[in-house]
């Protein structure tokens, strides 16, 4: 028996609603159609109960910097909002201003300032406020100060070595040379391990006599303003692939079929009678290359699809916050946006009715 997934028996309409079909030259059923009025036989009106019934999250892997999880039962519009918020709207702390007291290295002031800005700073942004736009100096609530004071000098060695590591001291400036200067009132941050996430980011190279003396000021910001504030290295999703074999594949065909897909997708087994047979074991691994459509004798036996509401998210943090915290924060931010507008609409309605009342009273008197 060929391997047939349960959905193979689903109605054609259900397929159109739930699957994106990959054909040789086109992609079919790309758009969501589950809206009221599209289908007579479905009630597609929004229902929180129905949503809660089918919504599901499965964590596949999780570490301090990376995470993969499946989000099932949402529309692309929602999944994409979460992704976009992760990239551009979850705040972090980053260096915003560099006061350069001395820079005699060969790297220009503005290039140095830019490089410093991009260093991920380990500090929980939730402990800080946004710096008010008109504030000149930062306060302990909104600013972290670092200092970079380093000078390259000759090492007192009498060798004929040419290696700068032997000849010079501090000839390479790394992110570990940034020193946090707690502002008055930041004592509570002292056990939070504030500093650069990675200690070995090269900032500049120097020669004896070169010197850097820079004061750095970090503020809270979001990726929409500048990419240095983005809390993720990448945040992306893909749809779960689904591969169905419509007929049995035997003998030589099996290996060819297997090679059309990513490793681990198709398994070739030998039956007790000594015949080779192919079956789908892990469609998730597939990159959906559609290579199978290049084989005229194979392509009619395979259906390639993607499940429209099954998102495989991959989130890679810069290391400032763990990836699961970032996703939680992103969801909270989307909730916050709704709350903000709801509040404003309510305030507006109230002020409108109260001004109407005033107007009426004015007329009476």
């Amino acid at each position: 028996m060929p391997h047939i997934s349960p959905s193979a028996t689903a109605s054609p309409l259900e397929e159109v609603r739930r699957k994106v079909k990959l054909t040789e030259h086109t992609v079919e059923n790309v758009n969501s159609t589950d809206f009221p009025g599209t289908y007579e036989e479905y009630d597609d009106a929004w229902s929180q109960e129905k949503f809660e019934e089918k919504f599901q999250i499965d964590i596949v892997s999780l570490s301090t910097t990376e995470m993969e999880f499946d989000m099932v039962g949402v529309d692309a519009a929602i999944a994409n909002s979460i992704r976009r918020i992760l990239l551009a709207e979850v705040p972090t702390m980053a260096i915003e201003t560099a006061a350069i007291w001395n820079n005699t290295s060969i790297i220009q002031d503005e290039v140095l300032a830019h490089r410093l800005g991009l260093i991920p700073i380990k500090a929980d942004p939730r402990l800080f406020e946004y710096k008010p736009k008109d504030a000149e100096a930062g306060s302990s609530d909104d600013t972290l100060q670092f200092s970079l004071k380093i000078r390259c000098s000759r090492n007192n060695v009498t060798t004929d070595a040419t290696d700068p590591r032997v000849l010079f001291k501090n000839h390479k400036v790394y992110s570990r040379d940034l020193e946090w200067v707690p502002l008055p009132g930041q004592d509570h941050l002292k056990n939070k391990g504030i500093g650069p996430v990675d200690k070995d980011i090269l900032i500049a190279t120097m020669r004896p006599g070169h010197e850097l003396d820079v004061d750095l000021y970090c503020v809270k910001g979001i990726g929409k303003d500048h990419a240095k504030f983005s809390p993720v290295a990448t945040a992306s999703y893909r749809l779960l692939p689904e591969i169905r074999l419509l007929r049995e594949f035997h003998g030589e065909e099996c290996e060819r079929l297997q090679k059309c897909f990513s490793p681990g997708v198709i398994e070739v087994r030998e039956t007790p009678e000594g015949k080779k047979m192919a079956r789908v074991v892990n469609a998730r691994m597939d990159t959906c290359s559609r290579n199978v459509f290049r084989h005229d004798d194979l392509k009619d036996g395979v259906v390639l699809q993607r499940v429209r509401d099954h998102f495989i998210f991959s989130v890679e943090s810069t290391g400032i916050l763990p990836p699961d915290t970032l996703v939680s924060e992103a969801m909270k931010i989307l909730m916050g946006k709704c709350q903000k507008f709801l509040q404003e609409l309510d305030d507006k309605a109230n002020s409108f009715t109260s001004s109407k009342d005033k107007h009426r009273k004015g007329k009476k008197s």
Partner: protein
Amino acid sequence: MAHGITATLANYRTSLQSPSTANIGQEANSSGDESCQTFILNDEDHTLGNALKYILNKNPEVTFVGYSLTHPSENKINLRIQTSGKPAIDVLKQGFKDLKQMCSHMLTTFESSTRYYKENHMDVNSDMDQS
């Protein structure tokens, strides 16, 4: 701030830091028909626009909903709602409520899944300490 040679990094701040008082506005509607209106959402883009469009499309009372970014350098969206009779503003409110409730459920599900994963798959000392 210190006086030195100060190099301030590129800073084209949105109104994020000092939010303008009004984040939502309504286009004047000459006909006075409350069932068709265009709302202006300041400081928003596809992130909220598309999610909102989806949830409003799910409302059977909505006959049309669409949004557009007015211009790449203008930080706002126009959201057009037409209904089969109900005031558009009520439908919009319902949309925000539904979206918020949906996110709330997503958040609790996500947090319980991560908690479960951490309890079952993670040796706090080995896995989390790879940095």
